[in-house]
């Protein structure tokens, strides 16, 4: 090769390799989050009568729900035109394409500087002792209004801040549904806290509000799991002596019966997709192994068969058929998968470091988990892995220990535990590692799970 060409060729090759590596590193994330996000304009809406008093809370909630979904790019409010159409009849057709109507034409929102793809607008009023929200979603790229309306709906709430927030949550949920997104409003995070002096099970909203104590065994109660329909909580507790599985109804708060087989250890339960069976780890054989049973503990079957420590079974929520779990059968703890009948055992992580806490994405293709790969023993970070291709992605980078990731029902958010603040606390983030929010601060808090 001509000497003059060696350097540029080498540089080009290097860039290509780096680009390929970057793309590979991020395919897992791209699969979940996507790289193209439509831009939406969400102007502050107004209310008439008593409704106006609560529009600040309304607008904050609407903007925040849409922004934190990770599905949309928010067009910055500072660029919005001065006039905001509040309902379809407010729109005007420009006399010639490109003429500005000060905000009353669809094209005013589609063109720079707003450059949005969508506009959410509307207004509220007080009517018959209720707040009424009239909400619309428009595709502002359409040439005329007739084709532009995607959503037009009324929402009702009480005439107070709670009612205003409620209609905002509902409007946001309907907007997100257009892109197949599910709102996280109404979902719950269950976790362990020792702020009362003992490890107990607690619940809270996805923004960290409404933190509520659910158990008071005054023992050690740990590692909660939530059933797919959100109605039952399973966890491990020392309240009856040796660690055993406990089941609680989230609706009544009452314990449901579970027969713990005779063993020194019964722990880390997980619900099957039909909510009628449980997987758990038991030391009945002398080593912690994976078992399946009915919801009351009957019909016990052993699934894994090794002389190794195996815990944390998690069944694929889409297929109900394959299980990922943590095992020491090849040495240090690693993530493995197997069929539901115990056959086809394969190791997913490459044997480096220690891996734990697998959690299936609702799509049944990607897991989140904790791994010390690349760091000293005990320094866990959150990783994602596409189970079929084994491609993985690292989401945290040794800001303390980061463990126990759990997927939100929307498959785009994770809740996890981190010691980055100096104590064990619960955080949420988007599956690309951005939008990290701290939810707890009292005492120490561990092992969150996100349920409906």
């Amino acid at each position, binding site marked *: 090769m001509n000497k003059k060409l060696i350097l540029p060729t080498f540089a080009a090759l290097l860039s290509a390799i780096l680009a390929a590596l970057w793309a590979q590193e991020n395919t897992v994330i791209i699969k979940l989050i996507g790289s193209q996000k439509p831009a939406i304009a969400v102007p502050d809406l107004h209310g008439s009568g008593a409704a106006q008093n609560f529009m600040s809370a309304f607008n904050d909630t609407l903007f925040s729900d849409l922004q934190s979904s990770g599905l949309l790019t928010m067009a910055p409010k500072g660029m919005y035109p001065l006039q905001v159409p509040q309902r379809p009849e407010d729109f005007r057709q420009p006399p010639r394409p490109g003429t500005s109507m000060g905000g009353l034409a669809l094209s005013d929102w589609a063109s720079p500087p707003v450059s949005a793809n969508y506009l959410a607008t509307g207004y509220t009023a007080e009517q018959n002792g209720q707040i009424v929200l009239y909400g619309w979603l428009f595709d502002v790229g359409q040439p005329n209004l007739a084709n532009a309306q995607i959503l037009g709906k009324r929402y009702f709430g009480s005439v107070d801040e709670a009612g205003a927030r409620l209609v905002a949550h509902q409007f946001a949920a309907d907007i997100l549904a257009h892109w197949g997104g599910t709102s996280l409003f109404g979902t719950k995070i269950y976790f362990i806290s020792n702020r009362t002096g003992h*490890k107990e099970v607690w619940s809270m909203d996805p923004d960290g509000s409404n933190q509520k104590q659910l158990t008071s065994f005054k023992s*050690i109660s*740990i*590692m909660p799991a939530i059933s797919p329909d959100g109605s039952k909580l399973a966890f*491990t507790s020392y309240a009856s*002596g*040796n*660690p055993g599985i406990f089941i609680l109804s989230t609706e009544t708060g009452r314990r449901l019966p579970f027969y713990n087989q005779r063993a*020194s*250890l019964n*722990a*880390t339960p997980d619900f099957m997709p039909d909510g009628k069976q449980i997987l758990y*780890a038991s*030391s009945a054989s*002398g*080593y*912690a192994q994976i078992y399946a049973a009915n919801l009351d503990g009957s019909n016990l079957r052993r699934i894994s068969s090794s002389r190794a*420590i*195996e*815990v*944390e079974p998690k069944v694929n929520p889409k297929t109900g058929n394959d299980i990922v779990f*943590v095992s*020491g059968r090849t040495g*240090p*703890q690693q993530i493995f998968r197997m069929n539901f009948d115990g056959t086809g055992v394969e190791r997913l992580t490459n044997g480096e470091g*220690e891996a*734990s*806490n697998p959690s299936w994405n609702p799509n049944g293709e990607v897991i989140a988990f*904790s791994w010390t790969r690349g760091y000293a*023993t*005990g320094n*866990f970070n959150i990783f994602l892995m596409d189970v079929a291709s084994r491609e993985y992605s690292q989401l945290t980078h040794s800001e303390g220990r980061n*463990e126990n990731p759990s997927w939100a029902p929307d498959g785009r958010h994770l809740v996890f535990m981190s010691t980055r603040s100096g104590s064990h606390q619960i955080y949420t983030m988007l599956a690309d590692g951005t939008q990290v929010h701290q939810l707890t601060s009292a005492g120490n808090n*561990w*092992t969150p799970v996100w349920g409906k």
Partner: protein
Amino acid sequence: MLLKRKWSIICIAIALVVVASGCKKKAPPPPPPPPPTKAVEAPPPPAAPDIAEFSAEPSSIERGQSSTLKWTVTNANQITIDNGVGSVQASGSRSVYPNETTTYTLRATGPGGTLSKSATVNVTAPPPPPAPTAAKPNLGERMNALQDAYFDYDKSDIRDDARSALTKDADLLKSIFQDFPDAAITIEGHCDERGSAEYNLGLGDRRATSAKDFLVQLGVPADKLKTISYGKERPVCTESNEECWQRNRRAHFSTGQ
């Protein structure tokens, strides 16, 4: 005529005299003699209380034994015995358990007065028990002599130092179970902070089981040894260095909860 008139005057005079004599107050008759006055006798004085009997039987006891007080009292409506006995009936008996020599006084009170009488119970110390061959510590003290077994990271096999500790523990345990046949001892398995909490539940369980298997091989009865894993839930120290981590990687003996 005159005679008639004379006789009339005489009659009238006689009648007047009679009438006059009739009008004249008579001197009252002499009062009857007073009835003979009786002498007022003082009622006979009420009988004084009588304590026919007040005794302690036996009058000499060893500390810890009992004696029986017996009494018979008449002419009293309030009878008490001191030193904790209290009010009693006119006749009866009561067992007493004095720790030292005690004099019991019975006090009988009635309309006729008060009378008391005493009975003494002599208490002697019991003979000293035979000197024990050696002072026997209680179960907790015996447990303190049991040594923990320590493990390598992520391992539950018995290494050399654990082997010698558990061998000594086996002898201690066998004698503990002989002296305390109802005792059950728990072997706890613990881990250091570094692995995941879930895996450490399983590892702590293996450490406890591994220690138990070793002890059972040396003859310690298996049904008296329970095992429990605390994973990394109950560390003895929290520093992030090998010295503390090693202290936590252990099997430890307790009486449970």
